């Protein structure tokens, strides 16, 4: 690594830190989650990451997004992908369709993950009916392994199609220790969501 590159790196670190800051989500009511009409009430503290994975996406965590990650998808409209496309030309992501059935929601998430994160192993484990603030939707669980760290993770998500837009909140954590540690906190959070 040359000296110039190192200087550029150091400069970037100094200049970029304020706008890249993560922030604390205190206990109590939270509104405007994922730049949408989604709101929730938190029992404890969470960290909101500056990580912007998509237009209507917000990521919260307790210990870091590799260990426990809550993702809010706030009203992804028809024709839009769940996440920002990293390589639209060669690895386009599937998009939301207004006439999607509830059972298409887990498939959409799986297809997105396989393309975006090189997830080569993923299964949808259970799918049951659920309500998202009174709207008919789906609660599903899944397991997957990303090719970059090969950690086995489990996920649980609640989602619904409301007026042709997808509202979805998911929780993902390593199978070992972390998933069970925080799943109840996620369930309480998901149950408090208002639209």
């Amino acid at each position, binding site marked *: *690594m040359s000296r110039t590159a190192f200087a550029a790196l150091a400069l970037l670190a100094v200049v*970029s830190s304020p706008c890249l800051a993560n922030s604390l989500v205190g206990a109590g009511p939270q509104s405007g989650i994922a730049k949408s009409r989604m709101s929730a009430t938190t029992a404890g503290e969470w960290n909101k990451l500056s990580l912007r994975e998509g237009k209507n996406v917000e990521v919260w965590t307790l210990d870091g997004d590799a260990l426990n990650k809550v993702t809010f998808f706030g009203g992804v409209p028809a024709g839009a992908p769940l996440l920002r496309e990293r390589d639209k030309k060669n690895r386009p992501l*599937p998009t939301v369709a207004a006439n999607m059935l509830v*059972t*298409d929601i887990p498939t959409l998430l799986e297809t997105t993950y396989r393309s975006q994160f090189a997830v080569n192993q993923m299964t949808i484990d259970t*799918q049951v*009916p659920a309500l998202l603030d009174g709207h008919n939707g789906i609660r599903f669980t899944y397991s997957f392994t990303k090719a970059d760290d090969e950690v*086995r993770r489990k996920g649980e998500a609640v989602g619904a199609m409301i007026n042709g837009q997808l509202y979805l909140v998911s929780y993902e954590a390593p199978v070992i220790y972390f998933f069970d540690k925080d799943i109840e906190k996620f369930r309480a959070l998901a149950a408090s969501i208002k639209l």
Partner: protein
Amino acid sequence: MLPPYTPAYEPTSVDERGLWMQVDEIERQLRDSPLRVRDGNLEKYLLDVLCRVVGQDRCSGVRVYAIENPSFNASMMPNGAMQVQSGLLLRVRNEGELAAVLGHEFAHFELRHSLNGFKNRRATTDVMAWMTVLGGITNTPTGDTQLSLVGSIFQFNRDQETAADLLGLQYLAQSGYPAHSASEVWQSLMAEQDATARGRKLKAKQRYSAGFFDTHPTSLSRAAYLSEMADKLPAGGDPRTQELQVAVAPYLPRFLAAQNKLNDFGGTDYILSNLAARSGWTPELLFARGELYRARANPRDLQLASQFYREAKTAGYARPELDRNLGLALIRNGQVDEGRAALSAYLAAAPDASDAAIIKTLLPN
């Protein structure tokens, strides 16, 4: 004639020993990877094919790891560990083509291409370390980048690729597989890339000459020179299509399901037609085709998806998820009554399925 071969080679220079230490560690990760296909005899079959093409004396020290990864690739590390990705097994049409690819990778190993120019490639690891730091500062996930850079450590230059192609062809000629297998792999890969581009409404581009920065000769020139060389060799015999089909059959539904979820309509449709050319439209392939069309979900696709599911059923597809997916395709296409009938059939056949409760919500009370 094949060049003489030294088995049980040990690294000699400092650089080479360092490289071996690294690849031994990578091999340990491969061995323990959750992505490795451990069930059944797939890895043993792949090793048998390798032995058939390069000969018993060459293959005896090799370890083959089958990895679930839908892209077309295989690679071999300088310590004799070979990685074969599931995507390769979906694309080769007979054992001869599989043998051509494995033989090519083995040729890189035999010619010790990994060491040549290793010093240059060491810079890649420095870049990787810095990328991680940079990623930490900017909170950008670097995992993907890391993977592609790791790939580039084991990339060879164009001359090496050509040398490996030619030695690979010599193995093929010795082994009894058809000598034209190697060029057919590249032709088929080009056709698939064109199909993917068409499916994504991009311009298909196959080039005859490689650009300055390309590490591989273009597929087109490869297919051409391999075919030209093969003309001069004995034609070879049986490509053993049936043997490949039997070996891959148990894994096919799983590999196809993964391929289907890559959001690559054109490429996947090409792969399915290719497989159908190998075995005819089997119930599994028809079902997979239904899945592909249902996923794209234009009205015409949903219509065709229902048709493929029904053909699969007529052809003898017996698992209950066929009725579920047929029902979902019909309902999404507005054929609600027919769809509900299919979903009821699914629930009758699999009342305890993990998605039974959600499927019930699509039926009338």
